[in-house]
């Protein structure tokens, strides 16, 4: 893939940073177009996608398990006094459930995933770029964009929703534990309360947006790594900026997607 054309800017750092930001946005856009152009043409590298999904899933599972459990526990303990103040403690499981399913689990899982995976992809591809491994692949007649980039973007896009569903369940376990601690609620009542409050329409938008978040993590990580320059310094920069950019983009897209999902699946 052709790299975006570099432009000469005044060495003033603000101008330079602004120019670099717009170059990155243009590069990401071009990279995404390249993805769309190549994704539907064979070979499809299914085996590589499966391998990356396995790796990414296993790599992220411990940290998202801990995070999910703590989110469920903490949010329930935090909301309990508020609900008591309004005499609405019976609604605690339901309101916590809606928060987890609609927003907390998708966004926090995506942010953790971005921190863990985007940097890893950025560093791995960056290192392959600066040590000419990507060039070697290209010269051997293999399309490195398909083999390295498309497979990772696919893996990220499809593994994040699976991880999010898992985190929702773990968060409910954490939440139940907190409810038992603060309110001594029995298991059946907790389940009934959550099922009565959390509807299918609450879960769908939350899960659907994680496909977008997964795609963001994949495309930013691969873009940063694939276009890395300047040796080991460039690899480090690719890994760091991949996390920053993907986390920021997840939050910005979340803002937009909340509006879209509320329009598609109105809550009232």
């Amino acid at each position, binding site marked *: 893939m052709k790299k975006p054309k570099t432009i000469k800017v005044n060495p003033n750092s603000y101008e330079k940073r602004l120019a670099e930001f717009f170059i990155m946005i243009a590069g990401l856009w071009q990279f995404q177009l390249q993805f769309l152009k190549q994704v539907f043409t064979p070979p499809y590298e299914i085996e590589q996608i499966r391998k990356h999904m396995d790796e990414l899933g296993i790599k992220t599972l411990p940290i998202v398990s801990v995070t999910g459990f703590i989110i469920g526990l903490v949010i329930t303990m935090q909301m309990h006094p508020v609900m008591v103040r309004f005499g609405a403690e019976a609604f605690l499981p339901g309101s916590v459930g809606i928060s987890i399913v609609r927003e907390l689990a998708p966004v926090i899982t995506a942010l953790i995933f971005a921190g863990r995976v985007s940097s890893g992809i950025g560093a791995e591809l960056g*290192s392959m770029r600066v040590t000419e*491994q990507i060039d*070697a692949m290209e010269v*051997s*007649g293999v399309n490195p964009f398909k083999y390295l980039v498309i497979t990772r973007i696919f893996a990220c896009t499809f593994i994040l929703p699976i991880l999010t569903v898992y985190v929702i369940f773990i968060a409910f376990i954490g939440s139940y534990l907190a409810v038992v601690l603060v309110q001594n609620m029995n298991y059946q009542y907790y389940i009934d309360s959550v099922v009565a409050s959390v509807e299918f329409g609450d879960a769908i938008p939350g899960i659907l947006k994680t496909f977008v978040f997964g795609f963001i993590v994949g495309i930013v990580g691969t873009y940063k790594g694939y276009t890395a320059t300047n040796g080991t310094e460039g690899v480090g920069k690719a890994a760091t900026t991949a996390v920053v950019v993907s986390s920021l983009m997840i939050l910005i897209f979340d803002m937009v997607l909340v509006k879209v999902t509320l329009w598609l699946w109105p809550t009232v």
Partner: protein
Amino acid sequence: MKKVVEINNVSKAFDSHVVLNDVSFNVEEGENMVVFGQSGTGKSVLLKCIVRLLEPDSGEIFIDGKNVLSLNLKELNDVRQNLGFLFQGAALYDSMTVRENLEFPLIRHFNFTPKEREEKIKSVLEKVSLEEAINKMPSELSGGMKKRIGLARSVIAEPKLMLYDEPTTGLDPITSKEISSLILELQKSLKMTSIIVTHDLLCAEIIADRAIVLNNGIVQHEGSIEELTSSSDPFLRNFFSHKIFEQQNRSSNV
């Protein structure tokens, strides 16, 4: 003799810095052509232009009669399957074992059975005398071993054309001589045509049938190693006097 590579008036610049300026030369079938030149004169850029890792600004490059600059990606990949490229740092895929590195081009471009693949891997590892490294990761190999495995990976599909980018850089004189002899041996047994970019006069003396010297982006001299080293041209005398001095120094150290 059939021309395997024809480079016609190739130019390449990075911004305002002209690296290659109207470079032209041919490489005949079975020939080992060495490209000399000072650092930054565009030797590696020239190799990368030949395989279109870099796009020249102008000119024509023919490999086996096909103008590689006018080919689409699929046609270009067909041409690339018939050539090998040994990168300066060997460029082994560091997430794969030696076996997987060697298997990579075979799995993707040929319909060998697993048994045939295994035989090919063992045979090429035997040629580079590294049979015991088959299950090692690249990080477990020394610089010389990496070069050997890189060489094995490049020739495993028995390409017609081999391109070497500084095959002996960073190696000690003994390993450097071994790699040079290995390159010559493989070239003879596989009947390949080769273009070798190097600074190493000893390597060139072992391998080269003919050499060109790049200076200021142009092919300034062409001839056999003997002709070039005995030339009275001031640039060549200056260029090779350093090399001969280095070589003598290294030989006395060995």
